[in-house]
């Protein structure tokens, strides 16, 4: 690993990220929160300076960007996300939040988790709430994908970065060129966000809230400027609009792009999408029946059932109802969904539906192999054979995912949280979902947890968003032992 190159590119990415801070400055100016305007502007300057300094320190390594090695690519993505979370945390600290909490909130934003430590929503201006939503929106499809779309130069060496950041085991390209792929992806993403904004505004939400919610829905993020989340609007229409867009955000964008381009059948043919739609339907039916049993009127049961199923499976993390008060059976449905996640190539987090599909087929294959030891049994997806190394990656991913979840849950429980809080907080952060149950439930927050727990959860969000191995490989000493500064 050549540290100079890692520093150089990370610096470049940070500098590229800094203009994002100008948007909340503009919003703050619009609402005449002049103090916040200053805060965002100075953060922008700070980030730009840090980025430039790192870029310079990395030296004239520009030519080597094209020859980025795999481990360097992973390191760049992991470090860049960590660094951007620190930059994103600065405005919160300025608004009076402590460092650990601010970093938690910023990481929760960028990784589209949606877990919050904010207790008093009135203490913050509109600029800050816009910033929370914007960080999620940027993190949704991927910051690096955005940079690849904007910067032609990055596209050449950006392949490793692009796929290290992408959600799920996908290396699907929509266009022969990576840059065109990134542009197509972001264009679809932005268009969907604009449509949702208009729909929400038409349904009676204020424009500011509509923009914030649209950004956090499409990113499968879950931050809401309203302290009671979506439940605070108490509108069936808004619930259904958001339910629909959450479903879209949890499906593969590349697939949707193709479907929009005329390949309607693409949706039906895609096995992951079918499984995703199937799980959503099944879980909604189960949850609605349970809510009905517990005395909720029929239409409310369907509405809240569908909303909560999608908010959890797509790892968004809104709440249209305080599901902390639901029966244990209903909560169990949600807890199971926390381990599912959306589709690969979507804005959703979690292990992804396709990995579950592959794991199931792999298991069936091994059962079959005991009956026919000499049989050739390829695992297929969509009629095509899945390479063995992909299957192995999926198994390793699942193993480390569950391991990370267990370690996180153990730490939080040992540091004083109750069992359900610990378990759900761990999976809610690792899966980038947001709320869990009990003291981290949908109407509660994470502020009361032990500071070390918060650090662990921040790490889990980071690990979860970058799909475990990208980050964990950097914890191997071997990756660092061979590290040297010299780019030569």
């Amino acid at each position, binding site marked *: 690993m050549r540290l100079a190159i890692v520093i150089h590119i990370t610096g470049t990415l940070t500098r590229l990220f800094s203009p994002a801070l100008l948007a909340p400055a503009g919003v703050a100016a619009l609402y005449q929160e002049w103090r916040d305007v200053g805060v965002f502007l100075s953060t922008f300057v700070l980030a730009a300076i840090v980025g430039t300094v790192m870029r310079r320190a990395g030296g004239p390594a520009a030519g080597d960007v094209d020859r980025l090695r795999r481990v360097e690519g992973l390191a760049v993505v992991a470090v860049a996300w960590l660094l951007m979370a620190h930059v994103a945390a600065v405005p919160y600290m300025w608004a009076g939040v402590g460092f650990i909490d601010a970093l938690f909130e910023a990481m929760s934003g960028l990784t589209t988790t949606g877990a919050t430590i904010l207790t008093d929503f009135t203490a913050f201006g509109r600029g800050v709430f816009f910033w929370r939503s914007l960080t999620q929106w940027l993190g949704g499809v991927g910051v690096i994908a955005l940079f690849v779309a904007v910067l032609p130069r990055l596209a050449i060496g950006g392949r490793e970065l692009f796929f290290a950041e992408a959600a799920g085991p996908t290396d699907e390209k929509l266009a022969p060129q990576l840059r065109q792929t990134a542009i197509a992806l972001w264009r679809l993403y932005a268009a969907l966000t604009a449509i949702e904004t208009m729909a929400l505004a038409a349904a009676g939400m204020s424009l500011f809230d509509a923009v914030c919610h649209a950004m956090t829905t499409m990113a499968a993020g879950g931050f809401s400027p309203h302290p009671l989340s979506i439940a605070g609007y108490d509108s069936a229409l808004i619930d259904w609009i958001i339910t629909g867009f959450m479903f879209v955000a949890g499906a593969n964008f590349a697939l949707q792009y193709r479907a929009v381009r005329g390949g309607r059948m693409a949706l039906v043919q895609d096995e992951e999408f079918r499984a995703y739609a199937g799980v959503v339907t099944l879980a909604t039916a189960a949850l609605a029946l349970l809510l009905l049993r517990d005395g909720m009127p029929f239409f409310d049961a369907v509405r809240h059932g569908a909303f909560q199923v999608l908010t959890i499976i797509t790892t968004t993390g809104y709440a249209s109802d305080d599901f902390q008060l639901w029966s244990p059976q209903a909560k169990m449905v949600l807890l199971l969904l926390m381990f599912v996640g959306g589709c690969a190539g979507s804005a959703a987090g979690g292990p992804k539906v396709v990995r579950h599909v592959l794991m199931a087929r792999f298991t069936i294959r091994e059962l079959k192999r005991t009956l*026919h030891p000499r*049989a050739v049994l390829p695992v297929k997806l969509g009629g095509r*054979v899945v390479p063995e190394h992909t299957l192995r990656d999926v198994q390793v991913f699942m193993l480390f995912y569950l391991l990370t979840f267990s370690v996180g849950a153990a730490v939080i429980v040992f540091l004083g949280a109750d069992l359900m809080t610990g378990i759900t907080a761990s999976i809610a952060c690792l899966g980038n979902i947001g709320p869990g149950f009990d003291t981290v439930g949908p109407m509660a927050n994470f502020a009361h947890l032990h500071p070390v727990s918060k650090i662990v959860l921040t790490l889990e969000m980071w690990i979860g968003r970058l799909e475990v191995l990208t980050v964990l490989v950097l914890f191997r000493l071997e990756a660092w032992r061979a590290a040297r500064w010299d780019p030569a």
Partner: protein
Amino acid sequence: MRAVVVGGGEIGFALSQALSERHEVFVVDHEPSVADRFEPLDVQFVLGAATSREVLARAGVEGADVLVACTGLDEVNIVCCAVARQLGSPQTTCFVSREDFLTPGGDARGLAAFGIDRVIWPEAQLAQEIERIVRAPGALDAESFADGAIRLVEYRLDAGSPLAGRRIADLHLPHSSLIVAVRRGDVFFIPRGTSELAAGDKAVAMGTPEALRHLRHLVTGVADADRQRVTIIGGGDVGLQLAERLEGDDTLDVIVIERDPDRGEMIAARLRRALVLSGDGTDLELLETEDVGRSDVLVGVIDNDERNLLASLLARQLGVRRIITRVSKRANLRLFERVGIDVAISARGAAVASVLHQIQGGSARLLAVIEQGAGRILELDVPHAYQSRELRHLAAPMNSIVGAIVRQSRAFVPRGNDRVEPGDRLIVFTTHEAADKVRDYFTHVKA
């Protein structure tokens, strides 16, 4: 007539041999050693590349009536036909062995652009033929005509068969069925009512599917099983195509055994439901662990006659009831059947017969050949000038029998007092020797 045969392999040789009896034949091949093989035949051998304009010109393509490209390479065959067409050859037939050149469904339309009139895909023909036999329970051969309204099946009469030792007239065959031919040892004949059937005979019957199902009960006395287990040994072109055709049927469980692990991966990727086993079809341990003996049908389509035979015989030992084996060398056909293979089948036999018929056939259409070409099923149009008469008064040539009459999209098995009307289509069973006479009979018939 002048014919040009390009490619001196097994097919080219068989074709040249058959054609040279009556026609002027040029053979083109680039291997000098091949020339020696053709020495005994009365043909003109031209040494040179099949795709060379100059070589084809030397072979007299300009003045030829037909050109058959049957080298082992598809691309060479296609280019050869294209060049020949430019040189002015009126009729081109092209052999292919891969489906790349065909539009889905085996349609050869895309090749017409190269000036190719007819495409022959021997592997596909063979796979299709084996599929028909596999699907007809207990049968040694099976064909279907007139959109499935009329079928032909061949059965072996075991010693215990109720039909053995009886005269055909006394059998009380189901209505709409007819025994059209009998093979006894090396003799192949068309029986009369007085002919007696013997154990060990192979009987060829034609009729409606319903009637033939009854006949099957008469022959074997066994009811149809619900599910059939088909084991295919050898995952080559034929094995793969056969498996693809069979696995679509939910009542068939298909197993393919392939020796080459890479090829096994490839076919497992192509097949949806069939189970692919990696191993040698001659490995007794593998056959035993996978319970191959329980198969209803075993199809041996390994590319090597000796290993194919070994695998088939092992399967017989394990108790497989029906064994269909592909034979590459014509000389082995008889041998295979003599050592206990139920059906020995060759890709080349059917392909060569269909090319020959196309060249010599006139207006009659060859629907099928059975028993390696000894028996032929022709379809003839009765001329409109024909005087309607009863079938028994039809002075049809020896060794032929009208198996079915198709009249205005209705097909039936005729009896002696049914009439043959002008405009009818007749499905006629004939022996190889009588085929020409049958063809001529209606072409020259006067009112």
